């Protein structure tokens, strides 16, 4: 494989095609997840049980020849189960740090909202700063560190809603939704012999991914579009039933993922459409709504969509 001759657009298309073998009909979601991945953001997949969240996360991990670990979050999971623990070695009479599953390149945090808030928060430092502090020692994480978490909607039994600070660490929140009936029949047929997940293999290498991450940063974003992104984010702060709007971290995520989308489109600069495409997944999960708004059927997604319809688009 001649990497130098392959454009970022082709690389990304290759990953997407690989994932498509396993999970069909989710091209738009895959495109956004890849954008988050190469722009250095983490992804939260929120949907009903059985919609393919975990399969998608695993397919992504396998498509990239990266180190992959999964942690199944349960109510009795402790922070040390995620981060690692120092164990006393009687041989040399000293403590040795045993790294937890967070020390990997791609971490699948499955059903993250079933763990207690304490354990959920253990990921805060890792996700935001790419390092882990245990017992006064700071351990750096891989350059590629990427968390893809799944969760059932918070109204389900045995869940703890993620703290707002933790939510803010995710660049995107996506819902997969149920696929069309034809696609669902295809899923049945595809799994008759073996799960397609077992068939796929890595199609790009870690250096490719690092190259993509570099190229994302090179995508140009004009001051006007930065302003547009900021206008969208600021508008969430003044919307009526919103208790807590999106912060500056959201503006950053919005521009970074838009740059990644531009790269995926083979563009050298961000277009307003990229920002609009990614606005709902980037902004909606960061808004805390008043209780009465939830009862009257107003959703965070609806608020962001309204904002997109009211703020004039640069053209």
């Amino acid at each position, binding site marked *: 494989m001649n990497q130098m001759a392959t454009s970022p657009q082709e690389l990304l298309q290759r990953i997407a095609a690989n994932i498509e073998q396993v999970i069909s009909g989710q091209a738009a979601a895959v495109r956004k997840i890849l954008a988050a991945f190469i722009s250095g953001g983490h992804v939260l997949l929120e949907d009903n049980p059985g919609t393919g969240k975990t399969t998608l996360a695993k397919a992504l991990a396998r498509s990239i020849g990266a180190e992959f670990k999964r942690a199944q979050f349960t109510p009795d999971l402790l922070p040390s189960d995620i981060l690692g623990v120092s164990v006393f070695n009687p041989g040399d009479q000293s403590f040795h740090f045993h790294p937890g599953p967070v020390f990997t390149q791609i971490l699948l945090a499955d059903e993250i909202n079933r763990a207690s808030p304490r354990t959920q928060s253990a990921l805060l430092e890792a996700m935001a700063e790419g390092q882990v502090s245990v017992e006064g020692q700071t351990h750096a994480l891989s350059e590629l560190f990427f968390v893809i978490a799944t969760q059932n909607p918070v109204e389900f039994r045995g869940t703890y809603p993620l703290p707002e600070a933790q939510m803010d660490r995710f660049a995107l929140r996506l819902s997969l939704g149920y696929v069309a009936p034809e696609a669902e029949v295809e899923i049945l047929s595809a799994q008759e012999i073996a799960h397609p997940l077992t068939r796929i293999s890595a199609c790009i290498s870690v250096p490719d991914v690092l190259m993509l991450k570099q190229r994302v940063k090179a995508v*140009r974003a004009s001051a*006007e579009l930065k302003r547009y992104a900021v206008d969208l984010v600021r508008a969430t702060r003044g919307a009526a039933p919103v208790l807590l709007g999106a912060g500056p971290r959201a503006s950053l995520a919005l521009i970074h993922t838009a740059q990644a989308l531009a790269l995926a489109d083979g563009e050298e*600069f961000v*277009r307003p*459409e990229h920002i609009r495409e990614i606005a709902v997944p980037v902004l909606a999960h960061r808004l805390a709504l008043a209780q009465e708004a939830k009862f009257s059927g107003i959703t965070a997604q609806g608020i962001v969509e309204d904002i997109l319809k009211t703020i*004039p688009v*640069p053209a």
Partner: protein
Amino acid sequence: MNTPPFLLAAAALFWGAQTGNWLVAAASAALLEAPRYVARRWHLETAEFIRVADFCTVLLFAIAVYLYFTFGNPRAVTLLFQWMPVIVLPLALAQAWSTARALDLSVLFWSLRRNPMRRAIKLNLAYPAFALWLLAASAANRQDAAFYLGLTLLTAWPLLLARPRSYAAPIAAGMLLAAALAGFGGQLGLHRLQQWLEAAVPEWMAGGARTDPYRSTTGIGTIGDLKLSQRIVLRVEADPAVSAPILLHRASYDDYLGGTWVARDARFAQLAPVGGATLGSTSAWKLNDTREPVLQVTLHEDSDGNPVLSLPANTARIEGLAAIEMKMNALGAVQIEHKPGLFSYRAQVGSSNSAYGPPTPRDLGIPKAEAAAVALIANELGLAALTPAQVLATVKQFFTDRFEYSTWLGKPAGGRTPLSGFLLATRAGHCEYFASATVLLLRAAGIPARYATGFSAQEWSKLDHAYVVRERHAHAWVRAWVGGAWRDVDTTPPTWFAAEAAGSPWWSPLADVWSWARFSLSAWSARAGERGWSGGLIWVALPLLAWLAWRTLRGRRADTAAATGEAGLNRPWPGQDSEFYLIERRMAQLGHPRQNAEAVTEWLARIAAQPGAAALQRLARLHYRHRFDPAGLSAAERETLRTEALSWLAQHPLKST
């Protein structure tokens, strides 16, 4: 405007048909619908809409004051309601001609301007304006089926268009028709019910100072305090030779039936203006043949429509009155056809009153119920032996000496009628008692007499420089046939006037000043109208309105590139010179504008089927690079964008051939 095309115009024209203001309606309809065909828009912010709304509010108050002083209530309220859509038309037009598709609610509510809602609510004025035109059309109060038909059609139109998809048009139309027919039937039924009620309980419908020339129901026999209002109904400027009190006659009656005076066979005869007259202009009417009118009384009267005139005795001519028609009955009541509100006339008083008919046998009739008491008093006074002049003097003396004025009356004792009780026992009552008793006593003495009603003018107002006549100055007296002519005889003790005035409330002077102000303005407006100033107040109002309009639109240049929305306005971003904007504007003129919150590629995808849209993809890419790529276009590419955009424009002219 989110109403279906021409719905607003139809509503405005319907209003014009109902109110008769065709020109205003046609102009409003054209202005409201024209934006569908004209691309030019103003870019107005909420602050500007607020100014337009304030302008409408000022207009509303100015017109309300003008209408109140010109027509009085309740006519002013009806007229204001009728003109409401025209008053708020500036706001509706501001929305129709602006780039905004809806207004912030704070434009309409002052409370929201100070405490804005966390999430602003937008209101499109189109349907509210539509409803206002229909409601205002109803204020014209044409009670005919055409109104109902028009209203039904106009409301059915948007309802049918907005019906749920699950209803087929014929079913929805059928249901609307059924509702309309049921509504019409119900409305007819209500009308019948009202007519029946009015016939069954007439006293519920009796109005304040209105005079019924056929019948006068007196307060005789009513127990308790007689209350009448302070309202000024007449202003009387009299020749100095006319001494107060001036009895202003409205109607006379000749038959008494247990508390009610009735005018029998008093049919009205039409009077022709002297020398003919054109409709609506002031003219003179001659009531009798007196050669030389000797005195003049000018009256300014306030009425609620088709009044019976208040005239001094022996009125020979009525001048300066803009009535449509005038008629008079044999008992001297003069009624005119005139719209409600203030009107003026001059009464020329002569020396005789040949116009009123000579006495009839009814002018000597005494009802059986009162005959015994009347005969008793007539005998006591020995009236049979006296000359008519002596009879008048004796009767007047009798009432002055032995009776007193009272507006409070108890129950008559001993099974007597109230009038017999007044003559024989209580000897206290109000003017209706005195007048009725006097009529019957004079008739017992063989003198034909009638019961006359009207007003007694004797309160001089320094403010008005005239006598003012209030509702409580309503009076009753006697017209007696003495010496071949009718003479006014008033036997009520003169103290009645002071007794009535004693009951004035403390705020009465304030009400008088208000009444005077209203009268003065109305009189000034009428004089201005006579001088051809057409409306008078208009000349004060016009500069004021012009100033307000200028203040609203000041500094607002016409934004011809309306369809580009906010882009290109006051933003220092690069690439604003792109020729792609010309294409966008041309597309908007061709009816495919880009929405404000629609990115260019989304817009192009939406209009992909339109001619010329396919060719725009490449141009849009160049435009985007010019606008959003910090690296920008090379000089050659910039030139390509320019030339290709211009050639596209040349290929897609505004008027397709």
